C-alpha cells in the first residue's frame, strides 16, 4: 500500500540529523554531485587510460594508482540510491514511471530531464557543490559560499520557473 510522505518538518529534522552525523563521524557534509563526478572519472579512466593520464583534470584522481570509486563521495552516493530504495520499499512507492505534467509529452519530459541533469551537474562542478554539498551543508557550517550558492540557485530558479511555466503547470 502506498503511504503518504512524511511531514516536511519531521523529514527536515531527520535530514538535519543525518547531516549532523556526517559532520560528527566524517567531518563532512552531505553531497550528491561529487559522487557523480567520481563515476565519470572512473569511467573515463577505464575507457581511455591515455586520455585520463594526460588530462590535468582527470590525472589527479589516478595518482599513486588510486581507484576513483574507492572514495568517500562515490560510496556515499551509492548509499543515497540504497536509502532511497529502502524508503520507497517501506512506503510502497517503488514503480517504473515517468513523472510529468499531463500537458507535455513523455519525450519532451525525458529530453528536458537530460538537459537539466547536464546543466545542474556542470554548474555544481563549477560552484564546487550542488544543493546538498554547497547549499545545505554549507549553510550548516555557516559558510558564506553556501549561503551565496543557495541564493543563486533558488533565486535564478524562480526566474527560469516563470519562463518554463508551461512544462510544469
Amino acid at each position: 500500500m502506498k503511504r503518504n510522505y512524511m511531514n516536511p518538518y519531521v523529514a527536515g529534522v531527520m535530514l538535519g540529523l543525518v547531516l549532523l552525523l556526517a559532520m560528527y563521524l566524517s567531518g563532512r557534509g552531505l553531497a550528491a554531485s561529487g559522487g557523480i563526478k567520481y563515476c565519470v572519472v572512473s569511467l573515463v579512466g577505464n575507457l581511455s587510460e591515455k586520455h585520463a593520464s594526460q588530462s590535468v583534470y582527470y590525472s589527479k584522481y589516478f595518482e599513486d594508482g588510486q581507484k576513483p570509486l574507492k572514495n568517500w563521495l562515490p560510496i556515499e552516493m551509492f548509499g543515497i540510491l540504497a536509502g532511497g530504495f529502502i524508503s520507497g520499499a517501506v512506503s510502497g512507492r517503488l514503480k517504473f514511471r515517468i513523472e510529468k505534467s499531463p500537458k507535455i509529452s513523455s519525450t519532451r519530459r525525458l529530453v528536458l530531464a537530460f538537459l537539466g541533469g547536464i546543466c545542474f551537474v556542470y554548474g555544481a562542478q563549477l560552484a564546487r557543490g550542488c544543493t546538498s554539498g554547497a547549499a545545505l551543508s554549507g549553510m550548516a557550517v555557516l559558510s558564506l559560499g553556501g549561503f551565496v550558492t543557495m541564493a543563486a540557485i533558488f533565486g535564478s530558479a524562480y526566474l527560469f520557473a516563470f519562463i518554463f511555466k508551461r512544462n510544469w503547470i
Partner: protein
Amino acid sequence: MGPISSLPGFPAWLDLLFAFVIGTGFGFALEQAGFSSCRKLTGMFYGYDTTVIKVFFTAAIVALVGSQFLAYFGLLDLSLVFVNEYYINAALIGGVIMGAGFILGGYCPGTGLSALSIGKIDALFYALGGLTGAFLFAETYPAIVGIANAASRGPVRINEILGLSPGVFTFLLIGAAVCMFWIAEIAERKFARPEITREL
C-alpha cells in the same frame, strides 16, 4: 572527540563505511520527504507545494544548532569540519546554471538519485544528463578553470562577515526561517493546485 574519522590511527575503510551509512540515511530522508517527486519539488517555484523550503531550512538549522551544542560540550571540534570555500564568480555563475538545471530537469542531483532509486524513468535520464554534465566540465576544464578559481575568499563564514557570533547569527537564521515557513504555508493555500497535489 569528533569528527571520529580525524582520531589518530583511524582506519580509512571505516570512514568509507560511514560514507555508505550516511548516504543511506540521506537517500532515505530525501525519499520520505517526497523529494523523489519532481512535481513536488517544482511546486516550490509555483507555490502549490513548499515542502522544499520547509525540509531544507529545518535540516540546515538542526545540523547548525546540533553541531554548536556538540562543540559546546566538547564532543566535536568544529575547526576540523569542512567549511566550503567561497569563490564569488564560481558560486554565482554555477548557482545560476544550477537554477536552470533545476527547472529544466525538475530535480537537483541528490533528489534525482532519490527519484531514480524508486524507479522514476525521468530521473534516469536526469542522472545520465548529470554524468554527461560532469564529463563536459572535465573536458572544458582548461577553458573554465580561470572562472572557477577567480575571486577566492577562502573558507569564510557568514557570521564573521557580519561581525556576529555564530550563536547570534543562528538565532537570526531561525527567526528568518520561521517567517519563511509562515509565508510558505500562506502560499500553499493561495497558489493551491489540487489537481497536481492530489497525484503526488
